[in-house]
């Protein structure tokens, strides 16, 4: 399953179209969930004898419950515009990783059983029976899609392969063939409240250590409160922020920003996770259940606002779905966006001038920024269209003197996935992850060559973990990926922090 490291694709430019290599990734397949993991997300423990009937029944149900699924299956004209847009196709050359071909794996079955043409002329329209081989193929290739939506940007009808992947994964879950990685994690959130299964005690201990580290570092006591009733702000952040690098540096950054802004905030041990893998398995019910924990935490703690930490898909669920899944949020302060992104908060404070920043502290860094797919194409920030591109860049430019964007066709709404999103961030998919990262890495290399870029900032827990792991395969240090708020953290001069820092100057950015 895991290929040797020398199997890293060499692309001459980030969007190089590969020659087709049929079946190249046919063996890529993540571990199947155990009966226990399946049950923890309320799906049957193993492949059921009547799986086929159930799969078809589920397909029918989805077509009746989800307009996107129905319209996308009907509307594709096979124009081919999406064929070269998927980073997994670019990295692997496997034609089944072309978005339309990925959709067709399921569409062919849908056609066979639910359309007139497929029932009577299957050959003509490429319809096929649902067999165990087809199921295996689904399992393999629907776990080679990071649900990044890049294809949907370029399809003339907006057909979003991510929606089809999610539907396929739900169908597979319903018949008892779920993926271990996602289901185990969702089970932990239902039970403990975060992806890691980190208990309250351990969480408190970790955060206390972190407070000590900050004090040691800066001489200022910056708090990271847990379960503080009556706090104004509930911070919901990916649990990776509590222990992984460079995530933790980002958390320190949020804490410093809150400290300087002088707001009362808290983390909840009950909802100690921003990630919501219910999205990845296409399960409305699981996604809702996870979201409702946040509602309960907000109510129990009596907060007025909710702010999300740096996490891509979590922000998509928060921004685009939270109101639907767990609203209405009538008990929160309506003067602020519900929920709000930490970048929105920080940028507001920067504009207000509450943060004292010393950009030169990041002078050893020549920076670029990786737009995370779910933030770029599945959510927004601020009041303006495209705020999700502007706000993080504004922040970075305010704290770092050397900022360079990667080529335009690889950033913003055209951003290339890190290769590890959508529930694929698991060791058993390392080969796929490396190949899928190669377009992004190639774009990074271009700015390294042209502008001497040394580091790349990201604001997604998955992106950060993925890059820390794959960057060494592309000749970068694993710490070349940074949290956005890590750079903020570096630059921020805390009130009362060493008067020796004469050169520190207060930078207030005009609203302009």
């Amino acid at each position: 399953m895991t290929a040797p490291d020398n199997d890293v694709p060499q692309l001459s430019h980030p969007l190089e179209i590969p020659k087709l290599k049929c079946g190249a990734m046919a063996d890529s397949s993540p571990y199947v969930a155990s009966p226990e993991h399946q049950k923890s997300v309320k799906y049957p423990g193993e492949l059921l004898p009547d799986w086929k009937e159930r799969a078809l029944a589920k397909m029918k149900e989805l077509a009746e419950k989800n307009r996107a699924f129905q319209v996308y299956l009907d509307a594709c004209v096979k124009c081919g515009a999406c064929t070269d847009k998927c980073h997994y196709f670019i990295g692997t050359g496997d034609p089944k990783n072309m978005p339309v071909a990925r959709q067709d794996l399921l569409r062919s079955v849908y056609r066979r059983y639910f359309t007139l043409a497929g029932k009577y002329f299957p050959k003509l329209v490429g319809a096929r029976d649902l067999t165990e081989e087809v199921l295996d193929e689904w399992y393999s290739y629907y776990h080679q899609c990071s649900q990044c939506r890049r294809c949907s940007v370029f399809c003339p009808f907006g057909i979003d392969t991510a929606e089809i992947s999610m539907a396929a994964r739900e169908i597979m879950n319903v018949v008892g063939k779920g993926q271990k990685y996602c289901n185990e994690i969702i089970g932990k959130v239902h039970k403990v409240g975060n992806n890691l299964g980190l208990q309250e005690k351990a969480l408190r201990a970790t955060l206390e250590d972190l407070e000590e580290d900050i004090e040691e570092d800066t001489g200022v006591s910056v708090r990271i409160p847990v379960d503080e009733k009556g706090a104004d702000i509930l911070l919901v952040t990916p649990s990776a922020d509590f222990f992984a690098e460079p995530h933790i540096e980002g958390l320190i950054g949020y804490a410093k920003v809150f400290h300087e802004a002088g707001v009362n905030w808290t983390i909840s041990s009950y909802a100690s996770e921003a990630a919501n893998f219910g999205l990845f398995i296409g399960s409305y019910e699981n996604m809702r259940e996870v979201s409702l924990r946040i509602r309960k935490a907000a109510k129990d703690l009596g907060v007025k606002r909710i702010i999300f930490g740096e996490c891509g898909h979590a922000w998509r669920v928060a921004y685009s779905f939270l109101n639907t899944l767990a609203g209405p949020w009538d008990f929160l302060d309506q003067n602020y966006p519900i929920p709000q992104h930490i970048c929105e908060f920080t940028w507001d404070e920067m504009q207000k001038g509450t943060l004292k920043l010393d950009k030169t502290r990041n002078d050893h860094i020549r920076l670029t920024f990786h737009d995370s797919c779910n933030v770029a194409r599945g959510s927004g920030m601020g009041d303006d269209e495209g705020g999700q591109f502007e706000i993080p860049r504004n922040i970075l430019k305010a704290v770092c003197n050397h900022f360079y964007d990667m080529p335009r066709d690889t950033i913003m709404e055209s951003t290339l996935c890190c290769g590890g999103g959508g529930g694929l961030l698991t060791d058993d998919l390392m080969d796929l992850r490396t190949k899928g990262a190669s377009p992004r890495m190639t774009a990074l290399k271009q700015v390294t060559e042209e502008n001497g870029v040394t580091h790349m900032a990201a604001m997604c827990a998955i992106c950060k973990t993925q890059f820390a792991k794959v960057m060494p395969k592309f000749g970068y240090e694993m710490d070349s990926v940074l949290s956005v708020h890590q750079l903020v953290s570096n630059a921020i001069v805390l009130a009362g922090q060493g008067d020796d820092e004469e050169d520190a100057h207060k930078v207030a950015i005009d609203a302009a």
Partner: protein
Amino acid sequence: MLGVTYAILFYIATLILVFGVAAKIRTYIRVPAPLKIPTTPAPKTRTGVFWRMFREVVFFESLYKSNKWIWLFGWTFHMSMWLVLMRHLRYFSQPVWGWVEVVQPYGTYAAFGMVVGLGGLWARRFFVERIRYISTPSDHLILALLVGIVLSGAMMRFVVHTDIVAVKVYMLGLMRLQIGFLPSEPVLLAHLFLVAMLMIVFPFSKLLHAPGLFFSPSRNQIDNSREKRHLAPWAAELER
């Protein structure tokens, strides 16, 4: 006899087209979009979404960003087709509406636009490896059908002229449920037969992309999820 056969054919084709597409549209309207999934950055107002859709329908904006060749051929084909279809309205209106008169001269050569567009798209299905891979026989057949329609039409227009007046009288008659006389010219008959076939396959094929585009959640949704709750009826049930 010929008049009767084609009358039956056209009545059946029309019924299938109208009811088939109506049934599909009804499904699209009824099936809820349970979550807000516009591909962002997306407009935050209804007017914004209207213009986004307008640009997609009229200019094929996303396709333009995506692939210049497909855009060039696809857009040429579609726009020429609209011109041709507008020109055709003269067979179905009496007196011919003013604006249809106006487009007549512009539409004449649109047939060539269709040929070039369709030809380019079809060639890609043979010569571009990726597109060859995703093509099924039905993709070729629909192109063949359209090429057949266009070539037979252009034949009548430029080579073997048909008695257009007779065709018009026949069509106007059909619209009033009167079956008249249809000239028995092979090219005309071929043209009409293929058109009827196109009408019949429309609701069962990828030609559903035309109505489908208007119901694509990633394009037609407003990006206002934080401001407004968006609850599908079946999801509301979960809250009981």
